[in-house]
């Protein structure tokens, strides 16, 4: 691994016209939405500052809050686990799922980090991503290129071409609603057949609330219809109270470019005896480098990340190479992706990718948490340079 490998990869990406079209469309649409949202709800900027303080406090108390969250889940009749590593998380989830099962999945970057879909399929299960973007990622065998727009690099022309082949029907590339309907119809019976629903978490309150934000209602179906619900929660997602969590939800939504999100689900535990809903509720709190990072004076800032994707949209490097930056083997993308990759996955790969940052700071300007990515990425460079 050296700089030339990173350079070759990024130059190749920057010359892909389909990728560029997708990025151009996604970025320009985000910028318009962001301006409109912040103009309409200017107080969100103050709320973001408050959330930054909540996250600073939460990350400093990560272990304590996760222990509280574990107790809350167990008290409410669920099962809670703390997984030190990705391997351990996969093993726990594998045991809860078993083999020969059908699984419907909500979009979750943390499960991408675990390469969970691939793992469960290899164990002999049928797995379906139910988020439209992730569905395309799964069947086009590519990586999610953005936190909230995973298929930002897949143009509608490309989607139409894929659906024509996959569904064996005629598809009009300009009929986006028609294409969405096709995928919805395909997924419909999967929800009813599924034995297990898997989700991530947008934020988790230590007093026992799992919060999930979405616009397609696929998450509600995925976590309501099957008998088992498994939630994978990065340890940095835990905040002290439900009130804190709602603030996080609002900031994620608004900085993601949405005026109001379509749905927010709050899960407290398994369904009661006579209620509808999953009878089993398993929550896996994932460490995988996070606890160490929370004690690192520079890296800990990564953990304030709400994964809203604002920085990725605004990054000039991301704007021409998308999720190739951070590496195709990484679940994560862009400068923030390099930071997550460094903490959770391949430290060496991340270190070389860190050199592609311009240190221009537009990410910091766009970020609701004002995360200083240039500072963190420069620190990662420094640590590599010292070893060379």
């Amino acid at each position, binding site marked *: 691994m*050296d*700089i*030339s*490998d*990173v*350079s*070759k990869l*990024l*130059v190749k990406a*920057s010359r892909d016209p389909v990728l560029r079209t997708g990025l151009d469309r996604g970025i320009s649409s985000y*910028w318009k939405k962001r301006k409109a949202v912040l103009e309409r709800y200017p107080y969100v900027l103050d709320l973001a500052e408050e959330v930054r303080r909540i996250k600073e406090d939460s990350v400093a108390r990560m272990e304590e809050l996760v222990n509280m969250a574990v107790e809350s889940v167990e008290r409410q009749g669920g099962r809670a686990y703390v997984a030190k590593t990705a391997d351990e998380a996969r093993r726990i989830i594998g045991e809860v799922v078993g083999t020969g099962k059908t699984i419907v999945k909500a979009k979750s970057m943390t499960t991408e980090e675990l390469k969970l879909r691939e793992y469960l399929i290899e164990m002999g299960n049928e797995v379906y991503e139910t988020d439209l973007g992730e569905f395309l990622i799964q069947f086009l065998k590519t990586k999610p290129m953005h936190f909230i727009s995973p298929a930002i690099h897949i143009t509608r022309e490309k989607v139409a071409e894929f659906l024509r082949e996959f569904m064996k029907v005629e598809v009009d590339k300009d009929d986006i609603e028609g294409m969405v309907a096709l995928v919805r119809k395909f997924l419909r019976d999967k929800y009813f057949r599924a034995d297990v629903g898997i989700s991530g978490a947008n934020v988790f309150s230590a007093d026992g609330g799992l919060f999930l934000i979405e616009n397609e209602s696929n998450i509600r179906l995925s976590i309501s219809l099957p008998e088992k619900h498994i939630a994978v929660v990065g340890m940095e997602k835990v905040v002290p109270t439900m009130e804190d969590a709602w603030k996080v939800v609002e900031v994620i939504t608004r900085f993601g470019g949405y005026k109001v999100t379509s749905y927010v689900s709050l899960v407290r535990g398994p369904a009661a005896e006579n209620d509808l809903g999953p009878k089993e509720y398993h929550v896996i709190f994932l460490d995988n480098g996070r606890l160490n990072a929370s004690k690192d004076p520079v890296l800990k800032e990564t953990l304030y990340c709400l994964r809203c994707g604002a920085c990725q949209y*605004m990054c*000039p*490097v991301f*704007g*021409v*190479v998308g999720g190739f930056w951070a590496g195709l083997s990484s679940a994560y993308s862009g400068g923030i992706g390099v930071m997550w990759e460094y903490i959770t996955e391949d430290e060496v790969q991340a270190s*070389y990718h860190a*050199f*592609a*940052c*311009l*240190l*221009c*700071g*537009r990410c*910091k*300007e*766009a970020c609701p948490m004002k995360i200083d990515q240039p500072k963190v990425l*420069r*620190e*990662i*460079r*420094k*640590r*590599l*340079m*010292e070893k*060379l």
Partner: protein
Amino acid sequence: MSLKAVKTLLEDNAKRTWNPLGVRESSCSEWARGLNLPERGETLLYTGCLYQMVPYIESFSKMLKKLESLGGTIFSVSLKLTIGLRRIGIDLSKILMIGVSKERYHRILRNIATSLRQAGVEFAYLREEPYNGVLYHDLGMDKLFEVQAMRIADKIKASGAKRVITVDPHTTYSLRQLIPEFVDDWNVEVVHYLELLHSKGYRGSPKGGVVAIHDPCYLARWNGILEEPRSLLESMSVEVREPEFTKKFTGCCGGPIESLFPTLASTIAEKRLHELKETGANRVVVMCPICLTNLGREAGKLGMEVLDLAEFLG
């Protein structure tokens, strides 16, 4: 390309010349010739040598791009060759500079100096100007940066300066934010020349015309200098057009990754130029030598021209 080779080259050049591209400190101050500036004073104009390095960066970048297109192995071999050549007395940075003019960059600095004088500011200069060290810091080579930071601080202190005027955003940021992290008892006031001209109510002579303004990232975001360049341009009757991404949301020129990712840096510059062209202006004004070179290099293809704000002065 090998990061290790880049590191070795920079260390070697720093050791030899105190400059990452082998530019001598005495040639950094060539711009001041004939201006009769004193070498001591309460106020010092310190350039950080960034504008002066542009022609060297240009030549170096051309070589890098060629080598990048040939593949990574050749690149690291050639870096080793560079160092090898020098051991037998041949300086590649001099060979690269044959036929390259430094005149434009000297004129930019002289325009700044002249305008400051017209605004009633007296200042000294350093006869041997040290490089600002920013590349070392950017690349995470903190030991090298620390040595350079101490050298800069020593020279500035020795000049008797209590106030330093800077001319580019990177040096400004470095003197304000980085040097205090690395050097003890650094009590020097740092003022960017645009801030100083603005506070003196300086007005340039009428120029007219239309420009698209490109805020350099380190000027707008990291130093918060936004209104000064605009009001100076307006004082010269220049119509300033704002691109969609401007001020705190300005788009980077790509320059900062040019030394490791030259091709990608050009792609980013080209994209930024398209944004600037949407204003309808074919002239772009920048206030940073890095933006000047990286945007300037791609501008011809789009029928555009990139000028530094200081080129409107004088």
